[in-house]
């Protein structure tokens, strides 16, 4: 869920410098005619595990988008005459404590879980990129303050942030997204800051500055493009973390609220021994769905990292 930060700024910067230096464009003599992006795509396609993960996620995305067609029935229709039924032809994965179809809930839950994961990761990457670039460009006390805050937020478990926010303001999806993003942005911020510091001293940036470019221009035209590959990697891995956080928090009743289904809150039922013992159809499918999805996202993220920056593979 969290990565280990080697608490040295120097480490960030060296890694980023190497990445920028090795980075897109200087791929060796034989590949000088291919664009960096095409080369990265080629490396990614050769990675079978990552491609497998990507295919699984695509299928999942289609399932989530076409949920009403695939589910066949409503995930909300309560049937108190048929509660906790085992799987049958009518209910492929049986029914839950309110007689709702588990398969339909599983399919609709994919929408919620993916949405929360993607939005939280997007928010985290957006905030992180901005903070990291500002810290790197301005330096000085602002840099120190921002990075200290980032370290603090990184070490603050997001579950506690959610316990406080959800406890005091009531649980909801926006609070869930904000709380997850709050604990994920520092990773992006540290990375973008490292790239910014590495890029800042290169000639083309000096040239741009001499030509009168504003800091906003430098950010848009030079820093974000230089960091883009790594931003995509960090963002992808953040999606995995966010889906996992959503599941955990909804499982505890602090995230997505019923009757809306999420994979996490479907497992909420499995806090009773009777359910665990004799109704595995209630907890096994959502649990496996979370594990398979998070694993796939991590495969894709690792594959992207190796593709964007082959020199970092096998490290860390």
């Amino acid at each position: 869920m969290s990565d280990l930060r080697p608490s040295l700024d120097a480490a960030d910067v060296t890694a980023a410098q190497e990445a920028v230096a090795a980075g897109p464009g200087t791929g060796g003599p034989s590949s000088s005619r291919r664009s960096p992006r095409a080369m990265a795509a080629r490396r990614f396609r050769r990675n079978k595990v990552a491609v497998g993960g990507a295919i699984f996620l695509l299928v999942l995305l289609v399932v989530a988008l076409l949920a009403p067609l695939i589910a066949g029935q409503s995930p909300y229709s309560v049937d108190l005459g048929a509660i906790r039924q085992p799987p049958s032809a009518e209910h492929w994965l049986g029914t839950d404590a309110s007689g709702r179809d588990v398969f339909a809930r599983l399919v609709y839950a994919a929408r919620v879980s993916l949405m929360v994961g993607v939005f939280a990761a997007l928010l985290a990457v957006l905030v992180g990129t901005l903070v990291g670039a500002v810290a790197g460009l301005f330096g000085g006390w602002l840099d120190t303050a921002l990075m200290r805050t980032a370290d603090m937020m990184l070490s603050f478990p997001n579950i506690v942030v959610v316990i406080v926010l959800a406890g005091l303001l009531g649980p909801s999806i926006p609070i869930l997204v904000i709380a997850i993003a709050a604990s994920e942005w520092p990773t992006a911020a540290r990375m973008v800051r490292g790239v910014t510091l590495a890029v800042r001293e290169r000639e083309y940036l000096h040239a741009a500055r001499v030509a009168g470019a504003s800091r906003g221009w430098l950010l848009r035209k030079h820093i974000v493009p230089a960091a883009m590959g790594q931003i995509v990697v960090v963002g992808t891995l953040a999606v995995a973390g966010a889906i996992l956080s959503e599941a955990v928090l909804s499982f505890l009743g602090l995230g997505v609220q019923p009757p809306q289904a999420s994979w996490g809150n479907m497992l909420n039922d499995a806090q009773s021994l009777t359910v665990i013992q004799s109704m595995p159809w209630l907890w096994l499918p959502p649990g496996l769905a979370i594990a398979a999805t998070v694993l796939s996202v991590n495969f894709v993220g690792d594959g992207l990292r190796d593709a964007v920056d082959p020199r970092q593979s096998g490290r860390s």
Partner: protein
Amino acid sequence: MAAFVVRRILVNIVVFMLIGIGVFLLVRAAPGDPVRMMISPEDLQEGSEQFIQARRAELGLDDPILVQYARWLLDAISGDLGSSFLNREPVSGLLLERLGPTVLLMSTALGISLLIAVPLGTIAAVRRNTGVDYAAAALSLGVISVPSFFLGITAIYVFSLQLGWLPSSGMSTPDGGGGADVLKHLIMPAAILGLAAAGPLTRYVRGSLIDELSADYVRTAEAKGGSLARVVSRHALRNSLIPLITIVMINIPQMLAGAVVLEQVFAWPGMGQLAVRAVNTQDYPVIVGFALYVAALVLVCNLVADIAYAVVDPRVKVT
């Protein structure tokens, strides 16, 4: 060095105050009137509007917000975190009585994670790109991908319900059984928490040892005829484990997050279980108390990590 430590402690105190202000303002922004919350429904029925106003004045809720904050902060520092809305018990007492089980769970899990991570990471680094290395990588990826509560539920299904080897919940059986009984209850939650923490730690040990193995002094030791085992255990591993204390300290708060979840799954009577229950019953004072405890823990861990890093590695620039 002393100046560095003092400055870091002062910075952390300031940060703690800022977190305190944040939590205080959040509580004030929360819906619901604290007076109405504290009064039992029966009292509320007979109590008139005047009674509530009087209580508000008595509790100081009509004072300027800065005065209220100062009073709240002084109370909090002196250990008075208010009383639970639920059963009127003092919050600090409730938290303290649950500190023990949580510490027991976390320290056992920490021990397990180190027992897995150090040998596995070492073998993976020495035998790079072999089966052991790939197994270690798979384990790391697996434990960060499979939610721990799902592992917990599966473990209960297998070891408690199917095999009947281990108890599924609580910290001890009612009629008692001493340390062995607690140990039996501890095994599953601690093992799963430890396994989850072992993933990133294994990666860390492996990466750090690989860096050390390529250092000049390792080549020297090899050139002098040291066996692989000797070079690794006497030279490289020692250096690579020095920063481990920092990594462990940084990961303790994350481990607490894992403990909150597993306490819920295994009905382990710790602080996390208390906090989750407090959220579900909107017991604000308990939530705030828990948040301040965790904030203090996070800050202390970060402080120890910073200082330990500077102490064990003199090359770190102390600023």
